[in-house]
């Protein structure tokens, strides 16, 4: 049974609600309100993990998101496990299982610990200098490096949890629920502004919440009591939203912020069912108040990483908030007054601090007087030079500092301890401010970077300790003062607050504390997770890595999961000291989002699995499903690819469909093609400009195929456009091109040709299209619409008729993409399914066969019709496609025309569309395979490639379309398709394989 170090009862921890959890398979207990860290400490467990490089034992060091060491693997369920969770942040829940990471076989005995002994040859950047011999061995070395690196383990099964998003728009967003955030939120909300207050903890109040020292008073009340009342009042305001357990991850431009709300991580597993785990808030705030506080700095000295070495303010929180003492023999090491607060708190709980080592020569604040009164021993002007112990700190050595602080003098004194609190002063959390584009300035008096009030990028303000105010009176008074200006308030309830607090007067800062040993024999850690030390930084500087970015990258300082929250300032300080630069000039590294690591799932929200991307369905979709269609994804659309009939495979189905379409009748759902309604007096002129061919003379009631180019002359889209009236057309586009064609046409209309009176309206979803083709198609249409005169005179190829099928208006176009006699019925989509079924009924006696895109592609290939995007790739002109006939040479201009006459586009030996026949008529070429003339010549010259290839049941042979260099002139030429295992012989032919004289269109 481990020791119980829970010595206090207090209101924050519910000691009636005992929670069991497991750490490294050992069953332990904590209480509701605990974090994993506080519960472990209550069980006297400090050693939590191993460091990244040297595998040194590491313990809990903080109580918040800056924790570099105590990161654990949660659970070993492969779909639920989570790596690198900070023990200091995760709230204890019933059944929590946590494991130490980066150690084998166990955290207590880790073989990787051998690296610690090899550390002399593993300085910063050692891997750049070695593992180069023999040359082929890097991947073998790398294998070991990779396996010893990494921290926790990735889940190996899909996540079962749900994530969600929520947009919010507010007048004022306050980030941080400490005293300055609470004051700001209250002032804002009481002014009637729509306000959101975000805090990452479960309770509001920041550190004031558990402040129990009565020298801190506001309006004659202890600060914690005063604040509690403020919070109670705050919660009653209606136009204020408070989000607990929510952490702002990113502050982007235009006051767009992302915040992650944790909804279930603190609940026991069974309470989480059907709940959203995390919600990502996307907040657009008119104004932002940053009140993110400050975090305590460690001190940098030899072996400052032993488990049991804890930030002093964290020790205070563990005792005052969680009721847990972090050791039984605690000493403190500080350069400022905050360790005194900790000592007082401990003393109040009956834990006598053995000694406080203070590098300052003196201190005469209220706090220091309180300490003296308590009789706690203070060694002033001393420093810790080393620590003892391995898996837990056992002792520390101190020596007197020289006057300049550059060395140590006198006798070494050794103190026994099991916990050493350290405090190196405070660092304002300016991450979000700089993320938003704000610039910092350096305050020399206490070595902090704070927001430069002249370089604030948006409507925002920083208050409290995140703005560099550390003492209670400053925090409160300056917050109120700046919020008043920021929000334009006249008067507040906080004008004449009486505030009592301790004022710190003496300051002394030494970034790297001196040791009595030579530098290279010490291990003063800066980045505890990545094992980078002060001497690594110095080595980097010696090797010429002078900028902070170089040092960071070379030493990996600040690159751990805590992103350097504890290490960056010291790294900067040491660089400044070593290079004789002022820290203000040195600048900081870039603080990159997110502020704390952000779950992928939360970033993605509900758009996973079935919600990954939309599926667009035609009005006839369900019929296709019922009739065993296999679907092809075309953009977001689902199109029937082919329909399987009893026991067929794909090939058989396509052959059957293709034959049926030519021999009797086939029907295709072509609803996905883009459709644009074009109206306006200049509609014809507009089409003249966007298509390569001429449109003015197209008679009303007629249809025409058009080709659209990009301004660079390359084929972009195609389709049939029908003239419905004098100034009224309906254009069709390819399925995939629909949206971009419409937006491109709008662009030209609105920006280049505003003089044209033309209106474009998308009607893609308004109409569904079914295309009936084959020699019996006319009979089917006749059955459907007996009144319609289908004679070639009345209804010739490339024309349309308005008609009615069973009381429903429809447009019938006689156009063909298969070369067969074809009719395309366009009908309002809500009637489409019924009309489709009518067609099937009418076609039954002709064995009307529904076919999919594969058959459609095959049939058009037999006719040598191109599919843009398949036979074209953005590098082909109409002429390359042997479509010179479609270029309106007499037209003054059209989109892309000028580009057709550049020196490269007028070459006549460009790659051009041709047909291919294989020597073996059964051999179907692979689409994408390359064409060459000979294998002899090296390097092999590729002449082109196969764009479309099918076995044609109607011709009973394999056919293909290809793009071939100078193809127009090479008809009859024999080429080779070189495959991996064989060479296939082919002959270049005309691209039209079937019915060259278009007789079947009128069959």
């Amino acid at each position, binding site marked *: 049974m481990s020791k119980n170090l829970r010595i206090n009862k207090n209101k924050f921890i519910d000691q009636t609600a005992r929670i069991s959890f497991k750490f490294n398979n050992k069953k332990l207990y904590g209480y509701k309100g605990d974090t994993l860290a506080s519960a472990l400490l209550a069980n006297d467990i400090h050693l939590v993990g191993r460091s990244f490089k040297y595998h040194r034992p590491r313990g809990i060091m903080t109580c918040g998101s800056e924790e570099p060491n105590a990161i654990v693997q949660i659970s070993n369920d492969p779909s639920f496990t989570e790596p690198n969770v900070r023990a200091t942040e995760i709230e204890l829940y019933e059944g929590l299982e946590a494991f130490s990471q980066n150690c084998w076989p166990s955290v207590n005995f880790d073989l990787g610990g051998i690296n610690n002994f090899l550390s002399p040859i593993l300085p910063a950047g050692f891997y750049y200098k070695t593992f180069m011999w023999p040359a082929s061995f890097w991947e073998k070395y790398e294998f070991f490096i990779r396996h010893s690196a990494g921290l926790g383990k990735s889940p190996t099964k899909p996540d079962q949890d749900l994530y969600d998003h929520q947009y919010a728009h507010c007048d004022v967003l306050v980030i941080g629920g400490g005293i300055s955030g609470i004051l700001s939120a209250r002032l804002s909300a009481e002014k009637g502004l729509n306000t959101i207050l975000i805090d990452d903890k479960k309770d509001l109040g920041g550190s004031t919440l558990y402040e129990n020292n009565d020298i801190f008073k506001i309006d004659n009340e202890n600060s914690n009591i005063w604040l509690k009342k403020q919070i109670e009042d705050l919660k009653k305001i209606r136009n204020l939203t408070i989000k607990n357990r929510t952490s702002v991850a990113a502050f982007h431009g235009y006051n767009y912020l992302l915040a992650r709300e944790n909804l279930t991580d603190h609940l026991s597993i069974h309470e989480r069912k059907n709940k959203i785990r995390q919600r990502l808030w996307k907040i657009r705030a008119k104004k932002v108040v940053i009140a993110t506080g400050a975090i305590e700095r460690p001190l940098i000295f030899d072996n400052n990483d032993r488990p049991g070495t804890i930030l002093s303010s964290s020790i205070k929180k563990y005792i005052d908030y969680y009721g847990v003492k972090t050791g039984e023999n605690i000493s403190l090491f500080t350069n400022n007054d905050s360790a005194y607060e900790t000592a007082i708190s401990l003393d109040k709980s009956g834990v006598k601090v053995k000694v406080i080592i203070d590098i300052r020569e003196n201190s005469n604040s209220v706090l220091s007087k309180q300490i003296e009164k308590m009789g706690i021993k203070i060694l002033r002007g001393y420093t810790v030079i080393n620590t003892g112990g391995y898996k837990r700190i056992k002792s520390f050595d101190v020596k007197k500092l020289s006057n300049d602080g550059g060395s140590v003098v006198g006798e070494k004194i050794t103190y026994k301890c099991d916990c050493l609190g350290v405090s190196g002063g405070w660092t304002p959390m300016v991450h979000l401010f700089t993320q938003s584009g704000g610039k910092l300035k350096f305050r020399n008096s206490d070595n902090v970077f704070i927001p430069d009030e002249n370089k604030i990028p948006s409507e925002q303000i920083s208050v409290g300790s995140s703005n560099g105010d550390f003492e209670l009176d400053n925090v409160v008074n300056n917050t109120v003062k700046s919020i008043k200006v920021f929000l334009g308030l006249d008067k507040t309830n906080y004008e004449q607050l009486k505030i009592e607090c301790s004022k710190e007067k003496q300051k002394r800062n030494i970034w790297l504390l001196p040791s009595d040993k030579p530098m290279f024999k010490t291990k003063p850690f800066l980045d505890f997770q990545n094992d980078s030390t002060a001497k690594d930084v110095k080595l980097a500087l010696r090797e010429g890595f002078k900028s902070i970015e170089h040092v960071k990258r070379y030493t990996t300082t600040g690159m751990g999961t805590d992103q350097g929250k504890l290490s960056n300032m010291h790294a900067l300080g040491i660089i400044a000291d070593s290079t004789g630069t002022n820290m203000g000039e040195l600048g900081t590294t870039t603080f*990159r989002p997110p502020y704390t690591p952000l779950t992928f799932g939360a970033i993605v929200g509900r758009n996973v699995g079935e919600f990954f991307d939309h599926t667009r369905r035609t009005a006839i979709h369900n019929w296709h499903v019922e009739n065993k269609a296999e679907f092809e994804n075309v953009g977001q659309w689902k199109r029937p690819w082919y329909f399987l009939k009893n026991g067929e495979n794909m090939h058989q189905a396509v052959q059957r469909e293709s034959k049926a379409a030519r021999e009797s009748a086939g029907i295709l759902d072509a609803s996905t093609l883009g459709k644009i309604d074009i109206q306006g007096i200049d509609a014809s002129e507009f089409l003249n400009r966007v298509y390569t061919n001429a449109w003015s003379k197209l008679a009303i009631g007629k249809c025409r195929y058009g080709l659209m180019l990009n301004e660079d002359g390359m084929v972009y889209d195609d389709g049939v456009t029908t003239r419905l009236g004098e100034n009224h057309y309906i254009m069709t586009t390819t399925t995939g091109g629909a949206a971009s064609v419409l937006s491109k046409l709008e662009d030209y209309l609105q920006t280049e040709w505003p003089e044209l009176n033309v209106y474009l309206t998308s009607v893609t979803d308004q109409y569904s299209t079914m295309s009936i083709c084959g020699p019996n198609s006319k009979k089917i249409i006749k059955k459907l619409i007996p009144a319609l005169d289908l004679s070639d005179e009345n209804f010739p190829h490339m024309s349309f008729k308005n008609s009615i099928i069973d009381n429903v208006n429809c447009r019938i176009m006689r156009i063909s993409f298969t070369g067969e006699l074809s009719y395309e019925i366009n009908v309002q989509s809500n009637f489409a399914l019924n009309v489709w079924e009518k067609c099937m009924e009418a076609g039954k006696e002709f064995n009307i066969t529904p076919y999919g895109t594969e058959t459609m592609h095959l049939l058009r290939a037999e006719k040598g019709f191109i599919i843009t*995007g398949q036979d074209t790739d*953005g590098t082909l002109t109409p002429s390359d496609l042997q479509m010179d006939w479609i270029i309106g040479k007499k037209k003054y201009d059209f989109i892309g025309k000028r580009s057709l006459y550049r020196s490269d586009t007028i070459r006549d030996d460009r790659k051009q569309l041709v047909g291919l026949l294989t020597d073996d008529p059964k051999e179907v070429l692979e689409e994408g395979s390359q064409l060459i003339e000979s294998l002899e010549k090296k390097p092999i010259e590729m002449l082109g490639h196969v764009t479309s290839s099918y076995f044609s049941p109607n011709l009973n042979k394999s056919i293909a379309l290809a793009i071939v260099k100078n193809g127009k002139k090479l008809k009859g030429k024999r080429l080779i398709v070189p495959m991996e295992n064989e060479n296939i012989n082919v002959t270049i032919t005309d691209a039209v394989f079937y019915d060259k004289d278009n007789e079947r269109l009128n069959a």
Partner: protein
Amino acid sequence: MKNKYSIFSLIKNAFSGHENWQRAWRDATPKKEYDAIIIGGGGHGLATAYYLARKHKMSNIAVVEKGWIGGGNTGRNTTIIRSNYLWDASAGLYDHALKLWEGLSQELNYNIMFSQRGVMNLAHNLQDVRDLKRRTHANRLNGIDAVWLNTEDVKKFCPIINTSPNIRYPVLGGTLQKRAGTARHDAVAWGYARGADQMGVDIIQNCEVKGIKRNGDRVEGIETTKGFIKTNKIGVVAAGHSSVIANMVGMRLPLESKPLQALVSEPVKPIIDTVVMSNAVHAYVSQSDKGELVIGAGTDSYISYTQKGSHNVVEETLRAILELYPIFSRMKMLRQWGGIVDICPDASPIISKTQIKGLYFNCGWGTGGFKATPGSGDLFAHTIANDEPHKLNASFNLNRFVSGDLVDEHGAAAVAH
């Protein structure tokens, strides 16, 4: 050679507490005149200087860098190296680079950690399949080691990919280039800097170019924040800032500089041992030696020099990642950043002379410049030294935008990297 790096030198230096390592490169102050000046101290610029010195014996040269070397796209990319490009010109260029990568650590005596763990490109629709097969066939005939994998092979090669036929855009296959892989980006800049420095190249950091001095149709030198420096050959390798330099001589380039974002997860033990790219669902991922998942996002559609992009680009990328790797849902994004990429209309680079004598541009690498670093430097050095392109970069001239003879790699590089 000073300070040769090896395990022995590491051990030796350990005895002296690593106090005796020399600077990797000198902190040079500008001379009055150089035979050539490279503007831009990224990987490409430093490689250019290195090869100018090594292959063309030009040692009186300088690299001027407005910030710190390797601080631009070199240090901001996802380190993917491959050469499986469609067109002959591109295949020639990128495979030349790949061959240089293969011996680079030894050549530079700096471990740039080139790791040939393979790059796999996935196909998610029928046109993807056609395009990738076309590319695979072309690669094979160009002597590039690309092979086509069916869905089962894909799964075998990278078991954590969700190859279920029931996902929205199922994996229909893919191509694999085994010689492809990743390298350590910072090390590339540092290694070239160290190598160039040893041959006498001056690397001048914190030196911003403010103007280019011309005499008629030839260059005479550069105005910088550290004063005027005379030279009659200027190689501009300024990536996202190429247009800014071009504008100094009144030139416009066919470039747009756009934000490209990337992100890494927290480090974990090895989970993916290759690089997987998917153009159709727009996701690519690898794992660094440190254990972070390295994930590239797309570009924004607008020009920006802020090194920041839109959040929705990151969201879309991770959406695609979770579609293909649902096991990563509980992983956490540790860091996210942006670079400024200069994109050409045909998604191919420019390594070219200009109409101004002595002024050369190496730009337009868009989202995929890192992989070309050694090849780009080598060929640009050749172009500068001989005032004439090498045959491998002849197609990548500026005149192609006039003639129309583009090298359109959009198909191969829809998200390109």
